[in-house]
């Protein structure tokens, strides 16, 4: 699983701008929202889009899920709990790189 987490993290690092929003709270919100939505899409769960933010997360997640399915054939072999474990692992790795250990000095400024 660790290798799979690293593979998906590498893909996101290279492709996705949402992990690099301006402030730590934006990044945390995006990582949580988009990765959770990606997990639901990959698991074929019912998705209920209530708020505009949900819809934005869904748009990014839909593209990411499709990219994962296209580039990582092993994804189809994971069961639901495997997908959830993968998603949680990727969330933690992204938070580590872009928030917790980020060297970006502007991440925690209180204003934009």
């Amino acid at each position, binding site marked *: 699983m660790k290798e799979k987490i690293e593979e998906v993290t590498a893909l996101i690092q*290279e492709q996705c*701008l949402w992990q*690099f929003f301006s402030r730590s709270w934006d990044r945390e919100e995006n990582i949580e929202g988009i990765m959770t939505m990606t997990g639901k899409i990959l698991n074929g769960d019912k998705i209920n889009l209530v708020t505009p933010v949900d819809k934005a997360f*869904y*748009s990014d997640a839909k*593209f990411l899920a499709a990219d994962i399915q296209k580039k990582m054939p092993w994804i189809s072999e994971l069961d639901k709990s495997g997908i959830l474990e993968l998603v949680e692992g990727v969330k933690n790795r992204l938070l580590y790189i872009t928030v917790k250990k980020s060297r*970006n000095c502007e991440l925690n400024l209180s204003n934009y």
Partner: protein
Amino acid sequence: MPLKLFCCDECIPERQNHVYVKEEGEDTTQFLPLSNIETIPGSLSERGCSYCGAKLVIGGVIKDCIQMIHGPVGCAYDTWHTKRYPSDNDNFQLKYIWSSDTKEKHIIFGAEKQLKKAIKEAFKEFPEIKRMFVYTTCTTALIGDNPKAVCREIEEELGDVDIFVVECPGFAGVSQSKGHHELNIGWMRDKVGTLEPEITSKYTINVIGDYNIQGDTYVLQKYLDKMGIQVIAHFTGNVTYDQLRCMHRAKLNVVNCARSAGYIANELKRVYDIPRMDVDTWGFEYVKVALRKIGAFFGLEDKAEEVISEEVAKYEGKLAWYKERLKGKQICIWTGGPRLWHWTKALEDDLGMEVVAMSSKFGHQEDFEKVIARGRVGTIYIDDGNELEFFEVLESIHTDLILTGPRVGDLVKKLHIPYINGHAYHNGPYMGFEGAVNMARDMYNAIYSPMWSLAGKDPRVVDSPMWSLAGKDPSVVQEL
């Protein structure tokens, strides 16, 4: 050592923290260049100023405003006509420039009266124009003028005009980035929400951080029209002052240049709950992703696919022709900040090119996080590069082309290295599918042009290829 100290910087060793060479297996938790901090004394920076960031990059694009620059006349000239962002109202914003033309006496006695006179004169000369941007500059900020008070007086006096003041003296901040910030936050504070738009579609967006450089906005607008999406405002390509006042009514903010305009997207999210979606509108493959994401947000996936199919059919073959000729070519991107991360992987994936060195004038660490994540191993990443460093980079790597601005462009032209204007383009637009082809064409023309090598030949030398190419008789040279 991934952080690199150039030989030319030995006397300013602090520069080491601004230069990074990516190695295999590294990520940005280990190394991230310092950026958006003061230029180190001794480093010949090519940064612009806060006023330049506000006026030249963002405000000056707006097509129906008088752009009043409160300061000496030179400040006005230096942000006029240097960037080509057309408009569909006969390029009003490119044809004229206005200045309060402050002189020594105004510095001594105050320039507010002079500003008032200039504003009233400008409105009188352009009676059809009722909107104005006023920019402060170093001089008028230093003497403590209060342009906002002047403008409120004039608004009351004339009744039918609306004026926005940007406090952007050149000395504020560390680069033009401060001017982007001031304009974004000021506009959000003073103007967004002061007018209601006419809504013509249930799908509404703002396109943020696209400045219609050589028609970029027209390209994006065409795609969005086909998808049935209403653009409330482009921030700020081909836009009117009043359209920008209506930004609060969009359902989605689509952000391209997150550096110059991410602030207003963040504030629109904070204040009005409008989500921010960052996309790349440069790059053939990236544009597909951008349209698909916008389509997914509104449930317009089919419309997005229709646009993509139509455009791909038109331009895919052309791009492939250039790819055959550009793959493996090594290039440098020395621009402002965001184009580093917008372009590096796009050029690699779309055209097979290799970006070997990148320099950002005003990027923040967020931009370096993006570009290092997307960029290649072995590539040199520089913040606020100076000219001696550029020379040293060119000694250490091979490059077939440099994408940069006119200032550094002149430097590399003298070295006979092909150069493409990475700010205002050579022959754009560069955004969208057709833009990707235009950019490839310009790079092909630059790399394969014989002019660069011929420019290095001395015509007085008999065996110079310049003579044979021009069909001249080399013996003529004997008479010189």
